[in-house]
C-alpha cells in the first residue's frame, strides 16, 4: 500500500507509549453510573463478556476458574449484561457499593 523504505519503517504504535496491561492515561471508571454484577454460581465461562467488553474489563483470573471485573476501566456500558448467555450478570446502581471509587482530580 505504502512504499516506505526498509530503513525508515517503524513498528506500529511506536508513537505513543504502548500500554502493557493497562493504559493509565485514559482511566474511564468514573464514567460509570451502573455496574455489572456477576453471580459466579450461574456463570458457565462462556466468555461472552470477555469477548464483547470494549475495554477488556472482563478477564479470566489466574487459575482460569472465573472471570474477574476491572472497576478502574469499566465505563458501565452494560454490553456484558446484554450478552451474558446464562443471565449471570445483572446491573446495579453504583452508589450501592462502597468500592470501585476512581476519584480523579481532572476529567482528562
Amino acid at each position, binding site marked *: 500500500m505504502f512504499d516506505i523504505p526498509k530503513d525508515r519503517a517503524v513498528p506500529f504504535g511506536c508513537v505513543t507509549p504502548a500500554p502493557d496491561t493497562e493504559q493509565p492515561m485514559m482511566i474511564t*471508571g*468514573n*464514567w*460509570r*453510573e451502573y455496574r455489572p454484577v456477576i453471580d459466579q454460581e450461574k456463570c458457565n465461562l462462556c466468555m461472552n463478556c470477555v469477548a464483547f467488553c470494549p475495554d477488556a474489563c472482563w478477564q479470566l483470573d489466574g487459575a482460569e476458574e472465573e472471570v474477574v471485573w476491572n472497576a478502574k476501566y469499566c*465505563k*458501565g456500558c452494560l454490553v456484558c449484561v446484554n450478552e451474558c448467555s446464562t443471565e449471570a450478570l445483572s446491573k446495579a*446502581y*453504583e*452508589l450501592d457499593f*462502597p468500592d*470501585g*471509587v*476512581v*476519584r*480523579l*482530580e*481532572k*476529567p*482528562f
Partner: protein
Amino acid sequence: MAYVHEITVWTRGVVKDKEGRDVANGIAAAADREGKFTQAFDNYVDLPDRVNVPVRKYARISDVEIEMRYEYENEKPEVVVLVDATLVKGMNVLRGLRKDGVLVVNTDRSPDEILEFVPDPGALKAVACVDAKKICGTSTVDFSGSEGGVDAVGLGAGLAAPILGAFAKATGLVKLESLAEVVRNKEALLQGHRSAVVKALR
C-alpha cells in the same frame, strides 16, 4: 477584586449535558434579574463531550462587575452542583472548595449516604439532596451541537428545574421568584424547592 460567587456544575456528557448547562444558565439568568453581574459558560477543556464523561459548567455571580473574564475555570467554587450523584465516586468534586461551601446533589439518597463518598467534607457547610428524576421524569437532551445557542426545548424543562429549586433553598444566592421567571417547568422548580433535603454540617 470584589468577591465573586463561583458555582461549578458537574454533569455527564451528552445524556445530561443540557441539564447541567441549564442549571448554570438558570442561576446566572435569575441573578441577572436581581441586578447582579453574572457569567455562565461551559468548561472548554471538557468539550467535545462524549456519553457519560464528567463535564463541568460554570456560573459566577457578583455585586460589581466581574473582572475575571479570561479565567476559564472556577478554581475556588463556593457551590458545587452534581447533576448525577455517581460523580462523587468518580471525581474529586470538592477540589478547591471555599470554606462554608455547599454541595447540591441530584439523588434519591439521603445526604448522609452521599457524605460517605466525600473524603474530606471539612469545608462543607451544607449538603442538599433532591430527587429530580422522581419529580420530573427523564432528562432533556439537546443534540443541536450549538452548546445552547439555538435551543428550542427551553431552559429548565427537565431535571434542571428541581435542582435549581434545591440550589435556591440550600444557598440563597438567588431568589426562588427570579428563578421562576426564567425556568420553563415552574411546578418542578417549586416541588424541588419544597422536597429538597438540606443537611447543615455546622
